[in-house]
């Protein structure tokens, strides 16, 4: 029997396709999560440095929507699908030559979707596409039942924010050339600067192959709302930013960004009455932002700059995260690994993860070890991290675990613990 049954209007098909195209720029798979009153698509990229979420309201795009939760899916249903096969269904013949398609009436008119799962039934996502010319095609996609991972973002920890027309940002992107990979967003008095650059170093005789470096100063007045710290540099991946801006441009609304410090996530969000979109993207730690802006980087913020609300009920993961932040900013630090390794910070704000504290710390320590693999005196640093460990009210056994994790960390893949982490997302909030 069908757990989920809905019909997408023509507009709904377009909205879903746009969302899927955007998601496909982050990952190969999309997590679908359906509840009685909401339909959500999320994805986390493979390096776990970017998370995207599209939440569709039940009205507007859906001419029919019914969720019949049974068994393990009483509250909600979730599954993971391969994005490209979904896109190819919804893209059916409407892609290249719009003019000709209109003539041939092969535009999708609506789409009926049924999701079947349960004992003795094969798990299938069934999409019946009805074209305007009367043709109907039915696609049955297998899916994997996997608990979606949700990254959480703590607004109160992220005081810096701005709101601007998505169109304005999209036009800025037109000025950027190819070959760049990072975008530095910073404020300087009355202006917000968007500077793109590449961190790839080039050899002496290849200097002419360096990409065009573009910096655009936008008046603070142009933002609908802006409250950011002067001279604060936030560096993110241009590719992620482009994907977000491009989709935001389709919805045509304002986009808002919210962030705190380098090496902490930045949140982009926008939406309309029928869809709300949220992206969390890890920002690059300052010492990784090379080259021209290094000398302009703000000094490591004093301790008081860190989230002031370190209240007693603060979960241990967050406490360790703030220590991590201080660690990243220590000036003697060698270049830390790429932003992608910091990605776990996307999750530390989720307080419901408290039970996983040990794993969390293992991960942090694994990361510390990564950082220091190139240090000349790793022993001393390991001692330091051990001291952090013992400072925690953690049982001795855990300390040992963590220590052994330290030793093995070279062999640990930085994302190894995610499988364990995923189990926890079952109980958010």
């Amino acid at each position, binding site marked *: 029997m069908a757990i989920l049954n809905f019909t997408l209007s023509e507009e709904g098909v377009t909205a879903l396709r746009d969302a899927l195209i955007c998601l496909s720029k982050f990952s190969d798979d999309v997590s679908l999560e359906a509840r009685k009153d909401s339909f959500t698509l999320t994805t986390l990229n493979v390096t776990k440095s970017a998370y995207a979420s599209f939440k569709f309201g039940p009205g507007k795009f859906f001419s029919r929507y019914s969720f019949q939760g049974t068994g393990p899916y009483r509250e909600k249903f979730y599954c993971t699908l391969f994005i490209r096969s979904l896109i190819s269904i919804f893209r059916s013949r409407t892609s290249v030559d719009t003019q000709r398609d209109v003539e041939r009436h092969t535009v999708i008119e609506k789409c009926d979707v049924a999701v079947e799962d349960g004992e003795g039934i094969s798990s299938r996502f069934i999409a019946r596409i009805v074209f305007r010319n009367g043709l109907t095609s039915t696609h049955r996609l297998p899916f994997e039942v996997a608990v979606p991972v949700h990254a959480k973002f703590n607004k109160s920890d992220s005081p810096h924010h701005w709101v601007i027309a998505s169109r304005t940002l999209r036009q800025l992107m037109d000025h950027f050339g190819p070959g760049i990979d990072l975008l530095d967003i910073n404020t300087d008095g009355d202006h917000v600067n968007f500077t793109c650059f590449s961190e790839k170093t080039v050899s002496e005789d290849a200097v002419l192959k360096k990409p065009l470096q573009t910096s655009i*100063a936008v008046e603070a007045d142009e933002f609908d709302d802006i409250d950011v710290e002067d001279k604060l540099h936030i560096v993110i991946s241009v590719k992620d930013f482009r994907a977000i801006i491009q989709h935001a441009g389709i919805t045509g609304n304002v986009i808002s960004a919210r962030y705190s410090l380098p090496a902490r996530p930045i949140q982009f969000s926008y939406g309309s009455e029928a869809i709300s979109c949220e992206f969390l993207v890890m920002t690059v730690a300052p010492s990784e932002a090379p080259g021209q802006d290094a000398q302009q980087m703000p000094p490591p913020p004093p301790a008081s700059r860190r989230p002031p609300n370190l209240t007693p009920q603060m979960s241990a993961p967050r406490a360790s995260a703030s220590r991590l932040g201080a660690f990243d900013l220590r000036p003697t630090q060698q270049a830390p690994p790429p932003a992608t390794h910091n990605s776990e910070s996307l999750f530390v704000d989720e307080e419901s993860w408290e039970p996983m504290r040990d794993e969390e710390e293992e991960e942090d320590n694994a990361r510390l070890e990564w950082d220091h693999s190139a240090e000349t005196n790793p022993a001393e640093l390991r001692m330091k991290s051990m001291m952090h460990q013992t400072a925690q009210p953690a049982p001795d056994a855990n300390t040992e675990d963590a220590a052994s994790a330290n030793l093995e960390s070279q062999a640990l893949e930085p994302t190894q613990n995610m499988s364990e982490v995923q189990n926890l997302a079952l109980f958010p909030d």
Partner: protein
Amino acid sequence: MRFRTELKNIRTFAKLTAALSSLEKIAWVRLSDDTVRFTVIPDMGSQVWASLAMDFLFEGYNIQSAEANNTINLELPLQPLQRALKSAQNSMSASLRLTKKDGLPILSMVITTMTGDKGTAGGASSNVAAAATRNSNSDDPFADDEDINLGPEHLETSLRREHEKVITQDIPVRVLHPETVETIMQPKVREPDVHIQLPPLLQLKAISDRFTKLALVPPGNKSPKLELSANMHGSLRLRINTETTDISSVWSGLENPELDPAQLDMPVDEHPSTRFREMGPEKWASVRVDGKDWSRVLSVGRLEGRVIACFADDHALILYVYVPHYDDASAEDSVVTYYVQSYSA
């Protein structure tokens, strides 16, 4: 070493850059008190020597160099320049400055503009022009997918007041030592047998490209040669001759410009072209050119200048492209010279 200037004639500068960039990635730029020269010398293919008056592209410029004759020689990547100039089109002002960043020399272009390609004063017509430019650049390797995929503008947002923006485009450059520059010599070619004004390049290019494609049909022939001939009686012939096809197109009624005796080392009567003219319309001067290279050469048509082709029979083909000065008709024409790679028949 110092160079800074305001930019003018940005659209023409961008077109010139695009034309050069179709032949080679990097140009040698020589700046001096009164002339700026762009030179591209590909390993294979046609060379270009573009010599323009400084005040054709630059305004209020300041150049200071320790080198002889106050010259600055740079190696300049053309694609970043092209991209930067694209940002500068429809801008309110744009300046260029030679400076250093992180110890490396750059040409820094600072552009003051409104959001996007809309000048608030220009209104709809400038939008159309901008859109047309974008379309004509559709073969631009730099065209972002974004340009194409973007959805329609949303009216409610475009009503917002436009704000000024300052865009800085930093182009990496390399300063060349005078000794390096001395080894680069402009080719010397004997006096041509035929000189003729070419028909509209867009037309010539369309037909040339068609011929080249036809010759590509039998697989294996990767670089088909076109035969170009001209006489001193106003005719130009384009021909492709392969095992299976022999096609030609002839233009007639073209102009063979008069020679200026003051520019010649010899009396006009002794000039080879006079001999060719006397030998009648059946006396053709011919060269063979590589179809693909010729297509890249013809992309100079976007400059909309008058083009004189000089044929040295079975030896060389040179194109002189006279870049029009729209804003100052009295100014001396700037000339872009193409030494077209040619093969003997």
